[in-house]
């Protein structure tokens, strides 16, 4: 569906029409960029200037040392490191497991396969709050509280949405390649490793990026399982930020927020194509 995006049908926009379109686009551009820009300017202000009315649009002096201060006041480095580790493990876990499972569903015939696949889809309907409490009991029984295991291990079971996404993609790959590998004496895993995986890198990238975003931003999971501040990921660490001081230090909080946003923006700009494709596939299949 996303395949070839043509620059649509409207060849015949009149001049006033065109002006109107650009004006509207301009207004909305400002609207969409303003919050993030405001986050940035606030992060560079002296705390006193944050409360000025009318607001100071351009921070002066620019307090770049706010960005140092947050690393001194809070274990920001630990937060960052935790988030990075947490997301990387989850991305790897879900990529490996979801692709294996998706390959099974896309390519291998077995009795009960379709019924099982329906079950996979059905699990997407279950709100995570339903399974959250028994999972909590399971993981605390296992002695995994205050560790990342409860957050990371389930990722290695694959997620229904990712399995679905990858299966759709695998269904579209030509079977002739499988057969050729078979004739050469390769088993199913060889087919998976040599044919399916290399061809599916774009869709794997989509899966990985969506998982990264989800984990990077997730609050509830870490909130349930982690108690020690130095173990917090960035999302949870941010909430610690406002509570640690008497009044909210808006300039520092915004600086820390910027730090939390930068990795996402970087990934977004590096992988924009897959990113947007991922969202579209999500809707069209």
């Amino acid at each position, binding site marked *: *569906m996303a395949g070839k*995006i043509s620059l*649509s*049908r*409207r*060849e015949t926009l009149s001049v006033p029409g065109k002006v109107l*379109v650009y004006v509207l*686009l301009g207004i*909305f551009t400002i609207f969409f960029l303003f*919050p*993030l820009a*405001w*986050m940035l300017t606030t992060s560079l202000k002296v705390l006193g200037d944050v*409360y000025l*009315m009318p*607001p100071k649009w351009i921070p002066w002096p620019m307090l770049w040392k706010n960005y140092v201060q947050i690393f001194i006041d809070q274990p920001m480095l630990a937060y960052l490191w935790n988030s990075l580790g947490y997301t990387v493990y989850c991305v790897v876990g879900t990529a490996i*497991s979801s692709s294996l*499972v998706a*390959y*099974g569903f896309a390519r*291998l*015939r*077995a009795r009960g*396969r379709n019924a*099982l696949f329906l079950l996979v889809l059905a699990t997407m*309907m*279950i*709100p995570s709050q*339903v*399974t959250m*409490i*028994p999972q909590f*009991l399971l993981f605390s029984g296992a002695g995994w509280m205050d560790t990342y295991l409860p957050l990371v291990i*389930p990722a*290695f*079971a*694959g997620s229904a949405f990712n*399995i679905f996404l990858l299966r759709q993609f695998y269904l579209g790959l030509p079977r002739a390649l499988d057969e050729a590998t078979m004739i050469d004496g390769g088993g*199913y895993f060889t087919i998976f490793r040599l044919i399916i995986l290399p061809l599916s890198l774009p869709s794997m990238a989509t899966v990985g990026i969506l998982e990264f*975003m989800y984990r990077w*931003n*997730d*609050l509830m999971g870490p*909130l349930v399982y982690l108690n020690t501040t130095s173990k917090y990921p960035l*999302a*949870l660490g*941010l*909430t610690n930020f*406002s509570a640690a001081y008497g009044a909210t230090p*808006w300039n520092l909080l*915004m600086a820390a*927020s910027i730090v*939390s946003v930068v990795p996402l*923006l970087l990934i977004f700009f590096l992988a*924009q194509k897959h990113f947007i494709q991922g*969202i*579209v596939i*999500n*809707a*069209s299949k």
Partner: protein
Amino acid sequence: MKAIPVQRADVSAHLSAKRSSIAKKEERAFWLFVSPWVIGFILFSGGPIVASLVLSFTNYNVMSLPSFVGLGNFVQLFHDQLFTKSLSVTAYYTLLAVPFDIVVSLLLAVLLNQKVKGQTIFRTIFYAPSIVSGVAISFLWSWLLNPQFGVVNYLLSFIGLGGLQWFNSPTTVIPSFVLMTLTSIGGTIIIFLASLQSLPTDLYEAAEMDGGGRVRQFFSITVPLLSPVILFNVIMGLIGSFQIFTQAYVITQGGPDWNSYFYVYYLFNTAFGQMRLGYASAQAWILFLIIFALTVLSLQLSKRYVHYGDTEGGI
């Protein structure tokens, strides 16, 4: 020629034996490949679903063993004022946020779909803020909408609208949350935009021949053709709205006066604040029923109102 039938029978028997051994091997491989999901299902979703259902009929606070209370939790829930409050707060939010987001993102997608230069850049700009979901965006909005020092009130003061209390007033707190969703509708915009770009052009050409204006074309061609995608976004929106948590946790903590005590926030407090795991499980099951019912309802309505193409029958 005469000897061949015998040979063929031989070969086919041999082949079918071989085929069934291949089938067996394939079946074994299938279960091996899907085993991560099967194990995960038993441990992390299927098993927990059963456990959660059982727990919902008990009182359980981790300290002592669960005690069976039958439908007690459910009966109690309907007498629980916070339960009704959190449900109505969430419903109110959903009712405002879902239509608002759908309408705004569809209009923005149409705007982006005009033949303009730099479409990709605008698309990126509209989408970028929505990758920053969660905690950072919540803090940002609570600062933007700060009643004393927020820049939004300052800007509004020019048109005589300053002094709004936003998250601090019972009447404006939910609309404030709705307003906040604007920074995260990028995904919906992109979905609409991609769908718009795959619409057939001939209908529009025909409409132009017949002298139908832009607005007319939008309502009688674009909206019907997009209705499956609109439905998809509505269902996703409903499910998402009913599970709103982070924003409430970060910005208002349920206040003022319980007016943003969202359902999942209440559930979370019951479970991990008060450790009433049985009661919270009952709440979780009601949430499931609500989401399930809303989805079924949307799909039912869609049978009547949603236009699907000739070949495709699903979302």
